[in-house]
């Protein structure tokens, strides 16, 4: 089985092609606001490197947010169109879950991404990487209250300091770990694959 992975939800654009045991090729770019320009070039490069054709991929693994709204849509558009065009299986992955999966040996993984105005996009996962707190848009103080109730070893992963007691470990992405976790999960229909914004637009909130 061959897997194609794409994450365009944050400032680092990550792409990979893997088979069951190995990452065959991967690319990552630090390109804020330039994902639209680099995503397809990067994809072409990893296919050239592996000598695989887009048809050779069995499953598309697409990170669908939360994160930059524009960024999310780049990866989700590529995934949806790819799945439609070549009739491929596709599965969406929460960015927060992907970051949690990139760490190990804790009882709880708290992932918090800055969403401004004292809010974060956050999720809490247990040692088996199941959601204890569903991915949500949440006030930092409220999140801290939930963290205080946890009992066991914890790690806070993210791009913003939210707690005096614990330091925040910067986000990293272990693509192999993410693919291993998701490769046997049942896939979505490409029409069901939707961006995970976790927040309404301002215009809608003001209505």
């Amino acid at each position: 089985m061959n897997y194609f992975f794409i994450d365009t939800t944050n400032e680092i654009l990550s792409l990979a092609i893997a088979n069951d045991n190995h990452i065959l090729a991967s690319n990552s770019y630090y390109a804020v606001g330039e994902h639209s320009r680099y995503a397809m070039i990067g994809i072409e490069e990893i296919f050239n490197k592996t000598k695989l054709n887009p048809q050779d991929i069995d499953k598309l693994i697409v990170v669908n947010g939360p994160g930059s709204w524009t960024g999310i849509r780049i990866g989700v558009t590529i995934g949806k169109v790819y799945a439609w065009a070549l009739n491929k299986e596709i599965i969406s992955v929460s960015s927060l879950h992907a970051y949690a999966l990139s760490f190990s040996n804790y009882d709880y993984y708290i992932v918090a991404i800055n969403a401004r105005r004292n809010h974060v996009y956050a999720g809490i996962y247990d040692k088996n990487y199941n959601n204890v707190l569903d991915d949500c848009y949440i006030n930092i103080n409220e999140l801290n209250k939930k963290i205080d109730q946890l009992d066991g070893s914890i790690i806070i992963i993210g791009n913003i300091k939210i707690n005096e007691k614990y330091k925040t470990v910067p986000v990293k992405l272990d693509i192999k770990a993410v693919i291993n976790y998701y490769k046997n999960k049942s896939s979505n229909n490409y029409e069901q694959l939707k961006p995970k914004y976790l927040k309404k637009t301002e215009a809608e909130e003001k209505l």
Partner: protein
Amino acid sequence: MIRYYREKDISEIELIGKLIKPQYTFFINNYTKYLVYELHDHIVGFISYSIIQEQGEIIDIAVKKEYQNQMIGTQLLEVVIRNMKTSGCNNITLEVKINNYQGISFYEKFGFIQVATRKKYYPDGKDALLMIKNIGDKMNNIYILAIETSCDETSISIVKNGNEDMGTIILSQIDIHKQFGGVVPEIASRNHIESITFILNELFNQTHLKMKDITAIAVTYGPGLIGSLLIGVQTAKTLSFLYQKPLIPIHHIIGHIYANRLVSEFKFPLLALVVSGGHNDLILMKKEYCFKKIGGTLDDAVGEAYDKVARVLDLGYPGGPIIDQLAKEGNPTYNLPLPLDDDSYNFSFSGLKSAVINLIHNERQRGSEINKKDLACTFQTQVVNILVKKTMRAVKELKVKQLLLAGGVAANQGLRQALKDNCDKEGIILIIPPIKYCTDNATMIGAAGYYAYRKKIITDLSLNAYATIPYDNDN
């Protein structure tokens, strides 16, 4: 003789392969095939190629030094082209190193044309040239798959030879944005991505065409709402990559001009008046796909002024069609200034718009009722008068043969009628697209895409979207 390779040929193939690539290794998978040219029990040349989903690709072709210029490569390529034809391929692609002039001219003799460059394609960092040859039954016809998502319409179309609409789907989000009194960019982007694959699916079902029938993909890359444009651009790039189809970037305003091509031939020089919610340009075309902006708006586009006036009058959104309708029922009784009336070809509508808004406030403060029909009529009369005046002056001064009207405001009945009357008087041909091609649609992008393709205006996968971008290419 030419035959398929056998196991025993591999070492000889690799030796010949090293002539073209020092690290050449024999490589085969489910799609690749090798043909060899055997002479006196030895392999003197080979060709490798693949056929994936009725898409042919030449991978490598090599002939031993001492056997070159003996038509061996030609014969190998001819056999493969024939094979691909019988396999139902519509086109053949190949990559060739950008400085391999001998190779490029060899392929050009077979009718391959250059369509794109692949940056740093080779291990030595050299670019590759992507070449394509059409071989299918539909080889004489050019089918453009066109995508337009610059504002709040998601539209995809297939256009044949620049003037035949094979099928177009437009999903308008107007009802969604109505409640906000205008287009909300983030909401527009969110809706585009929801419907993009649904529309692709519907379109191919309706037209009974397949991706293999498509010659090239055209997409609006600006100007417009950046988040919205990105959905279309990303869709087009993904399809271009997956199917190895040329990618054509189209400027939204050029699309509007070419909406006219769906109903008429062009006679040059011509003048186009593009009027919409975002644009207000006078464009001179001396020949096909050459554009020179001779005038534009200094502030609001005319459609924008309509929307703002409609909002102050509580008429709803979008304001253009409502004001146009009311104007028909009213009289120009109010006193409003004529917008910028100088000897340039530029427009300015913000003064007129402010005058209307002030007038409404004053009347309201005085407690007097506003006659919306009469005010709409006065406003529209002033707008139409200046548009017609400057446009007709340009028509005469530049001695154009045709006048094209384009853009969403081209649907305005008052403007259409006034331009028609003036053009009839002057003996100028006026072309106006049907209403369905006036507002944003992908059909016009497909029409423009055809002429861009013929001019080899083709880009690579680094294409980005731009909120503002010029279109002039004739200075």
